[in-house]
């Protein structure tokens, strides 16, 4: 099953995810996020807008690649993949 890693900034809002090995069923990136939302209700509201698109300053990667479809998050997440969720940084 795919693993999920995320910025510790999100633990502030979802402490139940801290120090947890998060694994979810394979599927689309959107389905991965919904699976996390099952563990931590409200999670998708922090990374997606009300239309299900990735928020402007959030990055979602599958292994070493940034997801291509940031609107519907249809990119496939394979069984052995790792999904990374980070805030987008612009330096400073």
């Amino acid at each position, binding site marked *: 099953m795919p693993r999920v890693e995320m910025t510790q*900034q*999100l633990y502030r*809002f979802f402490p139940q995810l801290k120090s947890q090995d998060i694994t979810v069923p394979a599927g689309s990136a959107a389905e991965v996020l919904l699976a996390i939302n099952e563990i931590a209700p*409200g999670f998708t*509201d*922090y*990374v997606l*807008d*009300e*239309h299900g*698109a990735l*928020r*402007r*300053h*959030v990055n979602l990667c599958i292994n070493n690649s940034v997801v291509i479809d940031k609107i519907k998050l249809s990119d496939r997440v394979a069984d052995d993949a790792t999904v990374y969720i980070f*805030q*987008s940084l612009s330096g400073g």
Partner: protein
Amino acid sequence: MSDMILLGTRKGTIIFDRINASWQPRPIAHSGVPVCYAARDPRDGTLWASLDHGHWGPKLSRSRDGGASWVDISSLKYPLGARYIVKYLPTPDFNPETPSAQPEYSDATVLKIWNIAFGNANQPGRLYAGTIPGGLFVSDDGGDSWELNNPLWSHHSRGGDLFAGDASSVNHWNGTPASIDYGVFEPGIHSIVVDPRDSNHIYVAVSTAGVIETTDGGQSWEGRNRGMLMDYLPNPESEWGHDPHFVTNCPGQPDHLWQQNHCGIFYSDNGATSWQKVSKPDLGVNFGFPIVADANDGRAAWVVPARADSERMAIDGGLFVARTTDGGQSWQSFRNGLPQNNAYDIVLRHGLDVSGDCLCFGSTTGNVYLSADRGETWQCLGSNFPPIYSVRFG
């Protein structure tokens, strides 16, 4: 007089408590998170903060234990199909009176929750939230769920019902610079005024469009901008395109409304049927962002003037508060206790409040000043706060 002051700041929510006649700040809440507005619901004591997360989207945060703990709420969302006509930053040859030949549309998403307002006592649980890109949201269950006010969203001044199809009228709502941080140039609702005599009677102010009123609980809306004057349009008396910076009323005389506008200070004593410009530019009383009215005397109001418009800071390095008690016919300036040299403060639209004889304001320079004598003398409550976006007595 209130015993609590809430600050919404660039780095969180700061609450002052009045203890033994001294104002004491608590440790910051929402540490590190920009809070664009914080206020206390006078009906049940619930505290509210509008969080402006840079990465995670805007959220409302609610405390039902006086600020000891806060819970984020994510339920304020535009419904599927909510669209707006895209505006672009003005260019040197931009003419806001001229609509684009082919309107472009964008799905609406909440970018900023700019203001929170509370219903009257006869509507417990009724809350209002004004947003960028220009939607008014209403809750009737204390903020657990929210609904977009569609008649205002689909108003003819904004292109009509875009749920049903493309624009059926000209979009007169222009962008606010406050939206640029979100990568757009769209309007915002920053002022929501509920008539204490009649819960169905509400004013909202939009940057940049003007003042709009409903008398039927939000089922229909009409512009209320007669008498308003703009310095920046070919027709200064145009029905739309006004830039109210903040609008408020006198709770004891609700037909007395005050407006600090980009183009001066405006006053209405007839429920916004008409406005009168009451600025005194020769006294430096003209441009600014916040304005408050006395609780009982509709002719009395306070402003914190600033240099218009490209500078947006204290005039000639001296900070002052101006007060009128005669409906803006005359203004008195008060400087006692405020810095008169090297002051570069600007007080934003929600950065001034009044409670009885007590006034308080905070600036983007992180200074907080309090007056206990109707603005005549001031004391500093601190000079090292984060940039301050809102000040509200609790």
